[in-house]
């Protein structure tokens, strides 16, 4: 029983394999980290999981259901939410409206109820707005509630994306570099936010370069290099793995196997 499972997923773009033969499983309520050098294919993997790309081969299972090739909005309706490497916030709307969009899968989005305002739409809208505002408060974004999303500072934008993703009450949350561009204090805040989210029962998969965040938060870490899985395990063992160190810092930095003196 896994929340997310990939089986030999590959994706090639015009002959170049961005991701090759990737397999792993994430247990429910786990915090799982995806790390690796730039260009390793991490975001591509997220795009494959969330349906933006269709795998060239392999299968993706979400809560043991085969979702390979399903479009993004279907994945979202199954309970998947994600944030993006560069915040894809709706700049043409206010911050709270952004968060309200996150709850879309729970709302009635038909044409007739919309234009006639029947079917309890007014009450549902009010409730949605209140919930979104509350969510923003919990994430420290209360004062930006009615501000135009484009006016928010970068750190707040990253948290807004998380709030928007959480508004849909997902079961699986994909976070693409949640700490990118944040200073030490903001990153620390983000760690707290993510820990709270995980504690509420959501399975979290994150891509991160911030090792402090990765090692401090996650239960399992997968290292992706050149589109392939290098190693997967507990944070501490991955950190010590010579090939991982070589991939990040260069071959000379990797500890050589111990020579036993006879």
């Amino acid at each position, binding site marked *: 029983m896994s929340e997310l499972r990939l089986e030999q997923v590959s994706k090639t773009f015009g002959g170049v394999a961005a991701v090759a033969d990737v397999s792993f499983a994430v247990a429910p309520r786990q915090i799982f980290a995806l790390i690796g050098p730039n260009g390793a294919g991490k*975001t591509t993997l997220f*795009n494959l999981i969330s349906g*933006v790309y269709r795998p060239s081969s392999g299968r993706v299972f979400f809560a043991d259901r085969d979702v390979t090739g399903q479009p993004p909005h279907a994945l979202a309706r199954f309970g998947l939410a994600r944030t*993006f*490497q*560069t915040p*894809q916030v709706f700049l043409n709307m206010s911050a709270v409206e952004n968060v309200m969009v996150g709850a879309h899968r729970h709302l009635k989005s038909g044409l007739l109820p919309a234009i006639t305002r029947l079917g309890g739409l007014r009450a549902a809208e009010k409730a949605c707005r209140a919930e979104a505002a509350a969510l923003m408060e919990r994430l420290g974004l209360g004062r930006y509630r009615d501000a135009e999303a484009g006016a928010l500072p970068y750190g707040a934008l990253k948290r807004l994306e998380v709030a928007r993703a959480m508004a849909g009450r997902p079961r699986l949350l994909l976070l693409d570099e949640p700490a990118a561009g944040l200073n030490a204090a903001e990153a620390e805040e983000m760690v707290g936010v993510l820990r709270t989210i995980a504690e509420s029962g959501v399975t979290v998969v994150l891509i991160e370069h911030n090792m402090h965040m990765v090692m401090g938060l996650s239960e399992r870490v997968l290292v992706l290099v050149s589109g392939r899985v290098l190693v997967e395990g507990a944070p501490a063992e991955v950190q010590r793995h010579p090939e991982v160190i070589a991939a990040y810092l260069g071959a000379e930095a990797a500890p050589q196997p111990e020579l036993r003196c006879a």
Partner: protein
Amino acid sequence: MAEFLQFLFSGLTVGATYALVALGFAIIYNASGVINFAQGEFVMAGGMASAFLVAAGVPLPLAVITAVAAGVAIGVALEKFAIEPARGAPVVTLIIITIGASIAIRGVAQLLLGKQFHTVPPFTGDHPIVIGGATILPQSLWVLGASIAVVIGLSAFFSRSKLGKAMLATANNRHAAQLVGINVRFILLLSFGLSALLGAVAGVLISPITLTSYDVGIMVGLKGFAAAMLGGLGNGVGAIAGGLLLGLAEALGAGYLSSAYKDVIAFVIILAVLVFMPGGLFGKVSAERV
């Protein structure tokens, strides 16, 4: 066979016009991302100006050259007084501005020369030449020959001259071009001037065959736009191919299928292409990176 050749000749002739207009669209689009809805008016300006000058007694060669110069002047003025002041505006706004310009230019033409049709004498007489049982007007040969010359000249300009390469660089990445010292504002001015040149040349070439009036620019512009799309927006070779293809399709369709629906052919083709090949015949659909 003779009939087919006939349609082929007329199709290539009008196709060459569309190709020049389409190239003009491509050049401006590449430089600014704007679709210049006044492109057709450059064609009209070229034709109308030469008609006016010839009627005023100016010898034909001089009239043609002056008419083309007038077209270029209009293009440069358009950029200087309408596009540049609005730099930074959303693309939709810029498109509306070019629409306003096309209305204004048409208004001036109507003011100066009325709403009737005008004639322009053909360059070297109108004795049809017989080839393979089909007749072709000498003016058609002028259209094809001059268009080929213009395209060769343009291609040499882009690949050999510093200015041409600067234009290509700007089209590729505006910011980077600015950073290496290319005067991007001047490049934009040049793009409009060049597009106007192409349009005006097409206008002076084709009006001896098709007559000219204040509103000929509308359909020519739209079909040129369709041709540019057909080849993939921004693609120069595609624009030329698209123009010729549309001209041929129109002539063959009008000849063999229905002449009443001639104007529709170009748009049915582009609609079909867009639905089945969204990037145009030669273009690519680029993916968004997130």
